[in-house]
């Protein structure tokens, strides 16, 4: 939907024909042209097995693409991994921790693996990151004893050990309670306000809707759409929803009134509204003796856009 601008200087991620075929012949990612503008909070959506994780792993230099190129922060991956990755914080497919080490020692170890991290500021930065994700009190507990939500927070802390230009967060609120989710969303907004680009994959559409400025939708290894949120949502039509105890009659009248794609689900009839005053449609229903309980226009959401694109339900991205 957005004009693809390959190689634009301020794109934080730019892939061109990125393809991965696994050894078994399975095509995981197929000719992906993804563009993530600098400063955006970019939602990455797609059903399970759609190639999101493979894409993220290729961007992080963990998997070699079969063909195509990927540039992160303007430099080719995986070739420039040593200069690019210190500026990238990542949470990939959930956190991974050393169970026999405490939370603090886990972070000290990950920081020691970064060739550009200053060992003199290590302890202070680790303490700062623990504080930022609300784990300071549990810092000396073995990671084995952490709950899923605490592990997730520690994984986030590892991504925040240093100021980053790009954060890649794969399902960052997984395992968190609603309060924790809200904290993480606030954190993401803060980071974005500081100028960090956030690449966020999530199966929670409303989460993407709440924090993202841009989004891309993948299915079966291909990119279905990408662009600013406003443009994406504009692609989906509003729906007319009529609640009635006489669904059969209602559906007939609505069709006569020019309502397209009429579907009946129990006491609810929905369809695409016609290009005329909806008050007349309602009047026609009443005139035909249809008893109307509710008559509303449901605004298009990202979920509608998503379903229109993938033809699947909202559980698909899980």
């Amino acid at each position, binding site marked *: 939907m957005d004009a693809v601008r390959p190689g634009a200087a301020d794109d934080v991620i730019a892939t061109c024909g990125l393809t991965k075929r696994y050894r078994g012949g399975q095509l995981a990612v197929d000719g992906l042209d993804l563009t993530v503008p600098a400063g955006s909070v970019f939602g990455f959506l797609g059903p399970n097995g759609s190639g999101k994780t493979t894409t993220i*792993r290729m961007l*992080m*230099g*963990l*998997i*070699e693409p079969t063909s195509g190129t990927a540039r992160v922060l303007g430099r080719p991956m995986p070739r420039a*991994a*040593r*200069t690019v*990755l*210190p*500026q*990238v914080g*990542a949470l*990939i*497919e*959930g*956190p*991974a*921790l*050393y*169970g*026999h*080490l405490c939370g603090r020692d886990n972070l*000290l*170890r*990950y*920081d*020691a*693996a*970064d*060739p*550009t*991290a*200053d*060992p003199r500021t290590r302890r202070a930065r680790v303490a700062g990151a623990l504080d930022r994700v609300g784990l300071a009190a549990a810092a000396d507990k073995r990671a084995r004893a952490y709950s899923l939500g605490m592990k997730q927070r520690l994984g986030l802390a*590892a991504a925040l050990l*240093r*100021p*980053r*230009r790009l954060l890649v967060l794969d399902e960052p609120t997984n395992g968190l309670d609603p309060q924790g989710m809200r904290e993480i969303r606030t954190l993401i907004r803060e980071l974005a306000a*500081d*100028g*960090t680009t956030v690449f966020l994959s999530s199966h929670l559409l409303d989460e993407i809707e709440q924090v993202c400025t841009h989004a891309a939708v993948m299915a079966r290894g291909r990119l279905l759409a990408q662009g600013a949120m406003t443009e994406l949502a504009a692609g989906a039509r509003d729906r007319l929803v009529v609640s009635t105890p006489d669904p059969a009659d209602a559906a007939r009248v609505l069709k006569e009134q020019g309502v397209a794609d009429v579907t009946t689900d129990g006491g609810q009839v929905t369809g695409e509204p016609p290009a005329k005053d909806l008050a007349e449609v309602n009047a026609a229903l009443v005139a035909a003796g249809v008893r109307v309980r509710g008559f509303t226009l449901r605004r298009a959401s990202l979920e509608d856009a998503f379903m229109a694109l993938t033809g699947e339900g909202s559980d698909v991205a899980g």
Partner: protein
Amino acid sequence: MSRADAGDAAAVHRPLWTLGLLRSELLTTLRRRRTLVLLGVLAAVPVLVGVAVKIQTRRGGSSGGGAGPAFLGEVTGNGLFLVFTALAATLPFFLPMAVGVVAGDALAGEAGAGTLRYLLVAPAGRTRLLLVKYATVAVFCLLSTLVVAASALLTGALLFPLGDLMTISGTGISFADGLLRALLIALVVAASLLGVASLGLFVSTLTDSGIAAMATTVGLVVTAQILDQFPQLDAVRPYLFSHYWMSFADLMRDPVYWHDLTRDLGLQALYAGVFGSAAWARFTTKDITA
């Protein structure tokens, strides 16, 4: 938190950083309960041998008799011989098993736990991470051997007299000289384990399961030991990493008989070269999907 700051920081690669990573790796390995249990078992072997010999001699039995590990007969006369006996007793199985467990787990364990992907995006660098893992396993070879030697020396000193001793060749050497040779023997034994270490690290690059890599490596140790028993396999036996292991006893000859010792160290270098390269080739090109 400005972008320029992050960019500047990323440009500086710290030269001593690899040492910091090695330190972190050593600490992480040595704090695993598994590692501590292995070292504990290794420390217990000399104590068991020493106590067994002590009990037997008290009953008036002769402790030699040709059976049992090398130098066993000499232990009652001089506690220092317990060091050689303990190393001879642990080298065929306990020591290589411990090294096989640590080497096999080195990369496969991290892959299985998922921590490998975070080390690589930190980014530790694949070649450097492999070198650090290799160095850590080598340090563990030395540490485990020294644990056996130290435990044996302590047990020997407590249970038996210490003093000047006799070499296998029948010449007398001072206690200090004997101590020096014991240290040298420990170093040779540690170096003899590098072949297993390289093999284990290579196996570790092949799988994402730490348990599978550990079991395979320990299995290879046992297999090599069994194959080395068959005279029919004479063509192959000199290339088994364990074939010259017992040559460390030649350091107790006067003059030292170097032939088998150099063969042993050369063979370990060969294994380190071949399987080290194979591990590098595999690990630097592998897709990290775990």
